[in-house]
């Protein structure tokens, strides 16, 4: 459980810093590629997908804990 929260915290911080850096780069870029709406969408899509995967992971971790507890109870 500690590993899950530690990894999740690092992922959230890293993703936040990536989004911050992308916004900063978008604002600074003056080229034709500075289409801010679509660039923002490109940055946010992986972040949203990552949140969904982390929620699914949390459920999987919970299920595994229940399994471990049940098998420990059966052994005793």
């Amino acid at each position: 459980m500690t590993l899950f929260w530690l990894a999740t915290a690092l992922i959230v911080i890293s993703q936040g810093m990536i989004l911050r850096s992308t916004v900063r780069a978008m604002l600074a870029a003056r080229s034709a590629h500075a289409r801010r709406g679509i660039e923002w969408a490109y940055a946010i899509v992986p972040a949203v997908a990552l949140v969904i995967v982390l929620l699914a992971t949390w459920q999987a971790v919970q299920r595994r804990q229940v399994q471990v507890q049940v098998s420990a109870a059966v052994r005793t």
Partner: protein
Amino acid sequence: MTAPVVSAVATPSLARDLIALTKPRIISLLLVTTLAPMFVAGTPSWATIWWTGVGGYLMAGGANAVNMYIDRDIDTLMARTKLRPIPSGRMTPRAVLAFGVAIATAATWLLAHYVNVLTAALALAGFYFYVFVYTRWLKRTTPQNIVLGGAAGAFPPLVGWAAVTGRVDLASIYLFLIIFYWTPPHFWALALNKQRDYGQAGVPMAPNIWGARETIDQMVWYTVLLVALSVLPVTFGVFGRIYLGSALVLGGILLWGVLRVRGRDRAGTDWSAVAWWVYGYSLLYLALLFAAMAADRHLGA
């Protein structure tokens, strides 16, 4: 008296060009990330391994050939690509397109017939994503091209997993995500050193548009995210200690390399050699990480 001149350069031939169109060096890593997950997912038969490997090679090779057809205009402008069969005039664009489509079609049939339909569908999805989403759409329009485009290279573990289990589940999605988040630090390490090439070709790679400093900062954060993400499958029982130790050590070395690039950039010294090191090591990182996955499942129980 003059001695006959023997060229040290290999003579181009059609067979050699056809193999070159598939980009075999890149596919060797794709095969590692296809086959290793098969041993994580279960105990595949030799026939399943063979047909998944052949189908995977042909599908990725087809995607690479079609990519060379689409990018033929900019391949002539970059030193790295101007010796490819189309820009050098050894093959016509139409022949390259036909070859790419033919071997991708053959791959779809082989995978569907000898493995399963889901495996064929996932491999074909990877082909379409690489050709249409990455090459046609993202590559020339956004500095985040290889961020989202990284999904194309992340399909092989899904293919390998589906070949053994017939489904896609959370563990296989993690293998997909590991490659997805590995792609930015890997590719940007190359792009940092190829800014002139990409600039000449008009490809908006992040270092050309955002600048080296912003790109290097993102490489650091993507690497931290990658290392954290790579250990999460341990938390729900997919992998054990062998994999956890490998992921932390291999990821730690990658992060050290990326931080060295950042340190040199901040100090105003030349980072090109270190960036090349990161590019080379990142290839080794991915291959060893996937090997550790298979080893963990078979040795760690």
